């Protein structure tokens, strides 16, 4: 059997990747089972153990899930999250991706709270080639969402992406406001919003779980965009989120450029956690 020192090293890596102590313990006991079952008890090979652990992580994360699309009419995507995770930037990148596929894209500036958030989105709209529907700062976000949906229907647009205001999930009133925006969108376009993407900062620690939970309760999050993975943070909290809340990671952000948005790849993700060990 592999010595406990190696297991401790793995534990340290997982915890330092923000996987959290509960999920870390579960993963490690999971591989003990796995190794036992496969009669590899004698496998003192660290490589085998590491492989098993990575497989376990990939299994927890599940297969990659593509973004949903409306069968007909505009596909509506709501982008939500706490302050400063990169929602507006993600909206810009996402719009660019759809435009590159030849789709017609409209942004809705439903962040009417943060100073100059609307202007920020307008700049991204210009870069991505997406029209931006906006009101004045301080106006009702649901009204902006309504107008955006109307514009999308009138124009036969393919995608509507709503940039919502950052809000701490503990602020109940702000979460209600988000619910309202969602309701309005659902009334205007049947089946919408088709995706509600929670933007999560890869540097987030265990609080990420609390964020995911509260946002899911409020608006039924359908996927996660894990941003800022180009730093040294690993974003391991998504494992706990997937494990306990079953929300899949769909996209990752890896830079400030408009192209720096990728589909999530569980295998790459698992490898990245142990990058320092391999090196």
């Amino acid at each position, binding site marked *: 059997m592999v010595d406990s020192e190696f297991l401790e090293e793995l534990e340290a890596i997982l915890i330092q990747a*923000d996987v959290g102590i509960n999920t870390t313990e579960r993963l490690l006991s999971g591989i003990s089972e796995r190794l036992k079952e496969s009669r590899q008890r004698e496998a003192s090979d660290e490589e085998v153990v590491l492989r098993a652990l990575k497989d376990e992580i990939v299994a927890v994360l599940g297969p990659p899930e593509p973004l949903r699309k409306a069968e007909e009419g505009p596909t509506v995507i709501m982008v939500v999250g706490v302050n400063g995770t990169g929602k507006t930037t993600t909206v810009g990148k996402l719009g660019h991706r759809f435009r590159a596929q030849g789709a017609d894209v409209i942004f809705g500036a439903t962040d009417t709270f943060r100073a100059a958030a609307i202007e920020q989105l307008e700049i991204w709209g210009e870069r991505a080639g997406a029209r931006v529907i906006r009101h004045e700062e301080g106006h009702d976000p649901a009204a902006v969402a309504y107008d955006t949906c109307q514009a999308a229907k009138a124009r036969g647009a393919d995608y509507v992406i709503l940039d919502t205001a950052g809000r701490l999930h503990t602020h109940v009133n702000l979460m209600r406001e988000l619910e309202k925006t969602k309701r309005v969108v659902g009334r205007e376009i049947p089946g919408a919003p088709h995706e509600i993407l929670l933007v999560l900062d890869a540097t987030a620690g*265990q609080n990420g779980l609390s964020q995911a939970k509260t946002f899911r309760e409020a608006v039924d999050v359908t996927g996660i965009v894990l941003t800022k993975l180009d730093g040294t943070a690993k974003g391991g909290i998504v494992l706990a989120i997937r494990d306990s809340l079953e929300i899949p990671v769909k996209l990752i952000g890896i830079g400030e450029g408009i192209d720096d948005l990728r589909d999530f790849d569980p295998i790459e993700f698992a490898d990245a956690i142990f990058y320092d060990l391999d090196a």
Partner: protein
Amino acid sequence: MFENLTQRLQETFRKLRGKGKLSEADVEEALREIRIALLEADVNFKVVRDFISNVKMRAVGSEVSASLTPGQQVIKIVNSELTELMGGRESKIRYAPKPPTVIMLVGLQGSGKTTTAAKLAYLFKKQGRKPLLVAADTWRPAAIKQLLVLGEKIGVEVFSAEEGEDPVEVASKGVDRGKFLGCDTVIVDTRGRLHVDDDLMAELGSMQKVIMPQEVLLVVDAMTGQDAVNVASSFDERLELSGVILTKLDGDARGGAALSTRAVTGKPIKFVGVGEKIDALEPFHPDRMASRILGMGDILSLIEKAEAAYDKDKAVELREKLKTAEFTLEDFQDQLEQMQKMGPLDEILRMIPGMSRIKGAADLQVDEHHLRQIEAIINSMTPEERRNPEIIDGSRRRRIARGSGVRVQDVNALLRQFNQVKGLLKQFGGGGKAKRRAMRKGIIPFLQ
């Protein structure tokens, strides 16, 4: 999840009862739970390891003071060690002997630099200083506009250039502008950047050389996880930070990043951001932060406060009455008075371990108005009615309602709640744990 943790800790500590000195086994058992608590709070893995071994050295063999259980003793040591590690006392801004004082805000993307810059400016303005904001983030779309809008809102001048201009030059011109305008404080907002981005980190270095700030403050999101140590140490190596500002503490993050950054840089946390409003910036209190990270609430001060306010004789009397379920509305009235002496109730509640972590507790507000109403209702009763609530019939209820200015339904509701509490007391008889639970339930109906 956090609630379970507190319960687990308390479970462990219950086992460690009634011994004179802390044995190694006691301490180890307790520290196992503390370690989990700290990791759950996002304190860095290595920082936790060092911390635990320090506490262990200090705790083993130490005397358990008479008023505490061994478990509480360990908490006390952990708590004081945590507080000490985070800097003992709050730390202030270093002002330049010859104005203007220049403050540079640096950090990762989305940590809250621009918002914090405006909050700081507002704070200085309120203190009678004359601040200038400098928009040196010429990269992020609309970052300049954001600062201009905020500056206008708080009536503080903002120096800005065009998007895309050289940030070092903007910062330098900004400081000159500040001197020209006779400002005594210049706050420079910089572009968010990754600590591993060599070019951008070098850019901050040159900016620092040019504007020679008294303060270089790293803005850190309180929700940051394990990576906080890498971020803080990289920024500190490059810039020799003078301190840290912790943002978004109004969420439910336990904020272990505070301890991590402090441990790896040795630099004090000077302010904390506690909301989206422009005045939501507060001085940092290491003791409060320690309790928050530990997730045990401000339990020591709760005990202190309670001891100071509570009339001991009455407490004994009450305990006796609870045992025999002879709890009357008169006792209830006493209890309310005692509680009010301890201060605003929601403040007291926040000190209860785990309270902040209970689902929905963030928006839990004690309705002091409701409490006063209850007091008024009881005050409108005759002494006999208080001692013997069964005699309160329909006409007495109407009289009480008129006397206290409430609706009859409110009187009914109070009597119903009171009976429920009494029922619970009877049910639980004399058992210590059950009695405590019942007492808690006696308070809960008045929370909304």
